[in-house]
């Protein structure tokens, strides 16, 4: 794909007007090419600003007087910011959930799924750029990691939905000795998308495992292996 075709995709992406294969191609572009291409990064940033500016072409219209009181009724106190020690964020979908030590993190609802995906992609790309990270295929997913950095990302498109009653489990497999560590479970959304951001001290772990597990039950040992990552890099 040449740069003109790439920038056509970026223009459509900024307007949220891509679908089907083009949307998938844009996702790949954002992860595999844009982080390393300053020209495309500039173009994407500029197109996103243009897209945001287009909102101003709509006339401002005073909302109904009932809207603010309705918001006040539903706002309530803000939820306390969760600070899980291990898996710190999940960006995926209605169905996405990661459970660890009593934390069940879910984000989104159908209406903000695309926004959540976009936010996640942005964070992952920022991370990849900042740390000159490696992008390693893990089955239908991609791992973004950098040697010696305890933050990394896993995302996937077109990830099949597990069989009914099952969910995907994520495990850290130790180099030797101790048991595999269960990090959490997740489900891809209706579009087969999921994204995970993890904080993991890689010391002592060899690789990650994605398994199939019984939904709603915290597994004691890894279930059937679906995909396996490359060895975790522990030093720069």
């Amino acid at each position: 794909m040449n740069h003109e075709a790439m920038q056509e995709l970026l223009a459509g992406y900024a307007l949220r007007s891509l679908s089907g294969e083009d949307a998938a191609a844009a996702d790949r572009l954002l992860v595999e090419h844009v982080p390393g291409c300053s020209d495309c990064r500039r173009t994407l940033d500029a197109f996103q600003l243009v897209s945001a500016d287009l909102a101003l072409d709509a006339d401002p219209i005073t909302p109904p007087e009932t809207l603010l009181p309705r918001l006040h009724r539903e706002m309530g106190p803000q939820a306390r910011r969760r600070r899980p020690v291990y898996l710190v964020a999940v960006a995926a979908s209605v169905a996405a959930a990661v459970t660890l030590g009593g934390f069940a993190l879910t984000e989104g609802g159908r209406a903000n799924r695309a926004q959540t995906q976009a936010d996640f992609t942005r964070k992952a790309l920022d991370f990849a750029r900042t740390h000159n990270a490696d992008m390693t295929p893990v089955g239908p997913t991609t791992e973004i990691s950098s040697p010696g950095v305890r933050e990394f990302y896993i995302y996937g498109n077109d990830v099949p939905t597990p069989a009914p009653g099952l969910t995907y489990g994520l495990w850290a497999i130790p180099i030797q000795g101790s048991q595999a560590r269960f990090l959490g479970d997740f489900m891809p959304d209706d579009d087969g998308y999921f994204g995970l951001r993890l904080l993991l001290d890689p010391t002592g772990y060899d690789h990650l495992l994605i398994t199939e597990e019984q939904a709603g039950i915290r597994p004691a040992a890894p279930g059937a292996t679906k995909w396996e990552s490359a060895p975790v890099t522990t030093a720069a």
Partner: protein
Amino acid sequence: MPYMDLDDLELHRRLSQGEQEAFDELYRRYGAAAYGLALRLTGQQLLAQDVVHDAFLALWRAPQAFDPARGGFRTFFLSLVHHRAVDTIRREERLRKRQERASNLEPTVDEDVAEDVVEASFAGQRRKEVREALTTLPPEQRQVLELAYFGGKTQVRIAEELQIPIGTVKTRTMAAMQKLRNVLQEESE
């Protein structure tokens, strides 16, 4: 200092600490822009209210979604509203039959256009620049852009509606975005 004298960044910081007054001030500043945008896309008042409601509620519940390092609050929030409105349109198939006025470029006549009431001066100036920039586009490019942005339509659907090849839609879209990029960058410098 009164909330109305605080900048967006400070208001967002206070909102993040749970200050409802900061939320109310951001609503006062951006509620009309958000509602106007949502109404332009959805064409239905109830749906537009839901879009704006959901966007503000999301801001309250997850203020950390706004990253000041990535741009201004207005850019972030109106993008959020746009995304939600597009999702709403695509989810609600019945909106495909919405009234013509929703995609009409002329201001609606039975709504309270609030430009002079709540807008910060910067947004008002930028609005003028955006509208002037749009007039520089050839009609066929502007049409594609508006169908995508304000119609919430995919490029495939635009090609079907206009009965033109998808490649033409892509080319026109990129040309329009590049031209707007150049014009708006010049104006902001």
